[in-house]
């Protein structure tokens, strides 16, 4: 035990040398992550800020019928709560799209309404950027074809009516009859909410989007943080481990002492983040609804509860370092494993975005377990079952680390 204590202290001293610099980097990293949270919130239209999709209208918008249509979309249609239609010229629209101020713009060709009236095949161009900018923008691209089908179906009904009108008396005013049908379609489109009744059930015990992403970003941070210690933990040779073993310091003891020192560093870093995170919340105006009223107490309690998650991820990273004996592979492996697990486990997109096979896989991954554990912690309850899973994963990783080192010493 004495030997273990001595070795553990020696590891702490090693880590202590680089800690101030690591901490300074962590502060900067926290700033970057806050920016990430902010950009996700801004980019994801399903955020609580309920950001509207902005669509530019360019080209020939001067026609009176079209003008009425645009005015109806801007002032009367229910889509005005989700979409802002802004009239501008094409160049301005192009610039605003490039600057990210618009999700897309529509170009109406010259003489569009007249051409449509003559039955010519004219097209409105919907131009967008293929940059995955938020759910709502991507959804808008799909809705363009929906609108196209709606217009086609309306035309089908109107042309069909033209074909049945000769069945009527010769005196029937075709124009007036068609106008009436047109107006019915316009009325139906503007009153489309009558075809579905929306019932809002309210958020029950689920996390709000912000809270979910806070957990996700926290896990992303912990997954990528492993790279920081690459210079300390990548072991090119195991002669020291062999010597220690010969002097009575067993492999399990060595691994435990090194791991514990690494975990202490990870935990210290986590707690030192409280102040920058609070400052970032204050500056960006972000709020976690679960901590309403007592944000500092909320974050401290959350971080205390997250210690088992930090222990598992430290164990995972420690095991990865045991596998590798050169610097380049060590860093690459940490990054590749960290970013892949973060991506698949829902740190960037919620897991529900992925196919079922991935969702099932995530259930088995340690990072998936950590996210589930984190979301439960955020909800306020103590996740007893998930804590058991955390302990299981920790023991597995440490066991694997001991096995790998044993093999390396024997080689």
């Amino acid at each position, binding site marked *: 035990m004495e030997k273990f204590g001595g070795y553990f202290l020696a590891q702490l001293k090693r880590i202590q040398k680089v800690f101030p610099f690591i901490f300074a980097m962590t502060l900067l990293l926290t700033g970057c992550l806050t920016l990430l949270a902010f950009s996700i919130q801004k980019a994801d239209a399903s955020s609580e800020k309920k950001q509207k999709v902005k669509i530019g209208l360019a080209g020939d918008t001067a026609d009176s019928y079209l003008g009425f249509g645009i005015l109806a979309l801007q002032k009367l249609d229910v889509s005005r709560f989700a979409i802002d239609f802004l009239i501008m010229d094409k160049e301005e629209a192009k610039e605003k799209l490039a600057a990210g101020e618009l999700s897309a713009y529509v170009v109406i060709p010259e003489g569009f309404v007249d051409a449509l009236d003559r039955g010519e095949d004219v097209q409105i161009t919907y131009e967008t950027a293929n940059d995955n900018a938020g759910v*709502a923008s991507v959804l808008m691209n799909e809705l363009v074809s*929906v609108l196209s089908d709606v217009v086609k179906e309306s035309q089908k009904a109107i042309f*069909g009516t033209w074909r049945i009108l000769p069945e009527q008396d010769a005196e029937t005013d075709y124009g007036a009859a068609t106008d009436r049908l047109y107006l019915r379609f316009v009325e*139906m489109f503007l009153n489309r909410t009558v075809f579905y009744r*929306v019932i809002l059930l309210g958020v029950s015990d689920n996390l709000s989007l912000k809270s979910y992403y806070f957990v996700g970003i926290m896990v992303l941070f912990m997954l990528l943080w492993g790279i920081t210690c690459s210079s300390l933990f990548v072991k090119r040779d195991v002669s020291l481990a062999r010597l220690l073993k010969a002097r009575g310091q067993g492999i399990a003891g060595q691994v435990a002492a090194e791991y514990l020192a690494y975990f202490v560093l990870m935990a210290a870093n986590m707690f030192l983040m409280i102040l920058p995170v609070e400052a970032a919340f204050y500056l960006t105006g972000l709020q976690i609804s679960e901590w309403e009223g007592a944000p500092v107490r909320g974050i401290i309690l959350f971080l205390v509860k997250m210690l088992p998650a930090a222990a598992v991820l430290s164990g995972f990273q420690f095991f990865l370092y045991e596998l590798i004996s050169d610097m*380049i592979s060590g860093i690459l492996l940490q*990054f590749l494993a960290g970013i892949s697990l973060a991506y698949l486990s829902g740190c960037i997109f919620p897991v529900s975005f992925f196919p079922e096979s991935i969702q099932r896989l995530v259930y088995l991954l340690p990072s998936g377990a950590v996210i589930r554990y984190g979301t439960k912690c955020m909800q306020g309850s103590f996740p007893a079952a998930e804590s058991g899973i955390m302990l299981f994963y920790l023991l597995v990783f440490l066991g694997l680390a001991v096995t790998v080192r044993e093999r390396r010493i024997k080689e």
Partner: protein
Amino acid sequence: MRKIKQGILFYRMLSKRFFKKYSFLLLLCAVPVLAFCLKNVSEQESGMLHIVLCLEDKSDEAAERVAEKLMSEESILHYCIVEGQDTAKKMVQDGEADAAWIFRSGFREKIDALTERGMDGEAPVLVLEQEDDVALQLSRIKLFGVLFPDLSYSLYQNFAFDDLALGEKLSHEELKEIYEKTEIEGNLFRLAYVERGADSTEKQQNYMTAPLRGMLALLVVLCGFAAEMFFLRDAENGVLDGMAFRRREKRVYIYLFAAMVPMASAVLAALYLSGNFTNAAIELSMMALYLICCAVFCNLIRKICGTVHRLGACIPMLMIGMFVLCPVFFNLKSFRLVQYFLPPYYYLSGVRTDGLIKEMLCYGLVGMALNLGIDKIKEW
């Protein structure tokens, strides 16, 4: 000539050192394999919003047709059919689904009643959501779109029989036949993507594989950092002691390229296997320029950090900084000034728009000049 030969020899020696470790080779192979797996996974059924469909009356043909149409369409909305309104409600309440669309019994009759009575009556669909947001509001346009053929026909039928009073001259079957035989061709909207010219109508990238290029680009720059750490370790261990400072600073580029070139090849293979490869000329030229930019960037960072521990501690911060500020997941339009310092920004934006080759060349030249400037100061 002798110097070039020496450089090539040094490059080969370093490559041997890197490839001697199987782990490096395995990691290189893992990159295209993982990308290929992701591509395969992205082709499976998935969606950005998960919507459950529920039919109150399973024998209702019209409602069944609508649900089947939704299920068979390729969409970023992911649908599944569940039995029972309670199950659908629970899935929404538990966060397993974003919304539930419940097709009520007497679906067709409710539609006819609404179109007949001037949009007054009971809604044929119930929409359950936890909270309403823009994406869900937009998804309801999709719902309206899929209901529209029924609504349009119902309106046409009511107009013919009520307004035009053709009930005695035409039967329901004749009316339906006329409607169905009316063919409308062409699309009112044409979807185009601004990148690579306004006329591009290429298919929208899958949202799951779209960030792949960005993540792979970060791997290349990470490889550069790792090579710098390798160089610093060698310097600490006295491997480069026999070299003059200037020569050593030139040799660091060989370290960088020996590590980054294999990774760049793996990245190109990954892009090809994942279906994100544009064309060989663009990809190869952009990658070559990107390697130069990464080399000068990593070298500058190494010079600023000074030691292997500091550089190691810096890497996560730089990686996450690039992750946020370069168009990997999001195309952040602010912080342009910071973005100009990061090589992945040029590579990722350049591949999309074809227009940043000059900027990348300038970046490389300015970076080299800065490196030389720092070397001069150190020499003094």
